């Protein structure tokens, strides 16, 4: 690991000032991804600005009737919060489906959004990777890519975003709040991650030096009836090979409202708006659910070894929507 300077930020503006837009400096929160990447040499910061103890650790009602979640709230505290569990169950489930108890205690909400892909070529500094070393190539295209993207990828990068939490937040239209030296800003979660194009090293729409200060969850009534389901290669403590965050409002057998997002299929949480349009106003039947999944997945461009994900996401979508419908009927 490269030697680095370490400063503990006194407050939000102090953190932004300490980072000073320095491309060689990083904010440190839980460190569960950053410290690991520093050990492997993927990240080589000259300075860490520790933001873990900033007073951004509260979950509070927001004026619009939603919830505001501070950036340094731990994943554990987010998933344990009674309001989150009752009003946004898919968010609590998504967080609980990720990592381990230890890591959820350490990791923060802000850090979760900015964690990096677990693509094995990205994390191995002896291999080319356009995300880590722009222009060096993407060995995953012709190599190990059984858990890579089927949607929205490019010839430059086929890595997937690893977060479970962000999938649920995308379905909820959550808004990310940040602070820079020039003032505050916000960006909706489905606009936070940039399209891959030929610049996979540019991952988010956050301005240079920005510090995420919190996330707003809008008052989404359909979210009270929601579910996150994750498929992985072992029963626990593994990244998704496919996941679905879904919320469904069914009345008199008709879908009144729906939210749907996919995880582990793209460089960002994938909001399934095409499927949502196919669902709303249609009868709440397995046929409708299958047609909506098909409509969304028509854009899928699988690689030689991840075609299974198209079938997986189709079946997973139908299963989760059917479960939610049955739960309404009860």
């Amino acid at each position, binding site marked *: 690991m490269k030697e680095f*300077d370490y400063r503990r930020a006194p407050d939000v503006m102090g953190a932004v000032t300490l980072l000073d837009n320095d491309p060689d400096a990083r904010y440190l929160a839980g*460190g*569960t991804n950053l410290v690991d990447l520093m*050990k492997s040499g993927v990240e080589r910061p000259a300075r*860490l600005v520790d933001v873990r103890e900033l007073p951004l650790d509260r979950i509070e009602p927001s004026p619009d009737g939603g919830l505001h979640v501070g950036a340094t709230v731990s994943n*554990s505290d987010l998933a344990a919060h009674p309001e989150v569990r009752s009003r946004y169950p898919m968010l609590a489930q998504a967080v*609980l489906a990720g990592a381990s*108890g230890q890591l959820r205690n350490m990791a923060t909400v802000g850090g979760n959004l900015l964690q990096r892909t677990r693509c094995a070529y990205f994390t191995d500094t002896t291999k080319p990777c356009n995300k880590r070393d722009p222009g060096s190539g993407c060995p995953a295209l012709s190599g190990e890519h059984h858990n890579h993207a089927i949607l929205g990828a490019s010839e430059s990068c086929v890595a997937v975003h690893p977060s479970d939490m962000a999938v649920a937040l995308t379905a909820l239209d959550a808004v990310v709040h940040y602070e820079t030296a020039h003032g505050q800003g916000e960006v909706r979660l489905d606009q936070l991650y940039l399209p891959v194009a030929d610049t996979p090293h540019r991952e988010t729409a956050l301005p240079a030096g920005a510090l995420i200060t919190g996330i707003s969850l809008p008052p989404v009534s359909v979210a009270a009836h929601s579910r996150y389901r994750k498929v992985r290669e072992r029963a626990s403590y593994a990244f998704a090979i496919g996941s679905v965050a879904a919320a469904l409002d069914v009345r008199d057998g008709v879908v009144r409202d729906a939210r749907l997002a996919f995880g582990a299929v793209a460089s960002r949480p994938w909001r399934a708006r095409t499927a949502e349009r196919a669902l709303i106003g249609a009868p709440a039947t397995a046929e409708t659910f299958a047609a909506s999944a098909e409509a969304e997945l028509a854009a899928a461009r699988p690689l030689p070894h991840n075609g299974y994900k198209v079938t997986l996401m189709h079946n997973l979508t139908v299963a989760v929507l059917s479960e939610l419908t049955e739960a309404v009927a009860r």
Partner: protein
Amino acid sequence: MTLQTSSVVTLHINGEKHTLPVDHRTTLLDALRERLDLTGTKKGCDQGQCGACTVLVDGRRTVACLQLAVATEGREVTTIEGVADGDRLHPVQQAFLDLDGYQCGYCTPGQICSAIGMLAEHAAGWPSAASGDVRPAAGPTPLTADEIRERMSGNLCRCSAYTSIVEAVERAAETADSIKAGAPVESGAAA
């Protein structure tokens, strides 16, 4: 800006203060083992994947390999050396002994610290991925074997002593009230 790559930190470990200079790259795990001779905490993968280095930081289970020592200043650390009350073992330790919750023993300090943290999380009403309905209205989740396996999935055992680890945690959970209060009980009382 001149870069300062080391600092003098004061770490609070098992109720004692230790003041020492650390290179900023030093993890809490390496500070415990290499600098403070607290070698009960084990280094397994050193990547946050195996749980062998689990300690409690401010009462919450944490992997010490991904926690920088310099970032731990001001926080209260409890390691396996600090969970017993003198010669009286913590009920989780006693349960692991009584039920052979290990084979080689290398992952055991991490398993025990993780179980202590996990039982407190469960007692606080935290749901898990095994809980199904996470809504508070669904009521508290009983600590079934499935719940224990899910909640302890961050601790790997290369000997695969999982069957007896689950039994030991189940046994320890029977004394959950005393664990919640943070008060060690008499040796064998967990039985």
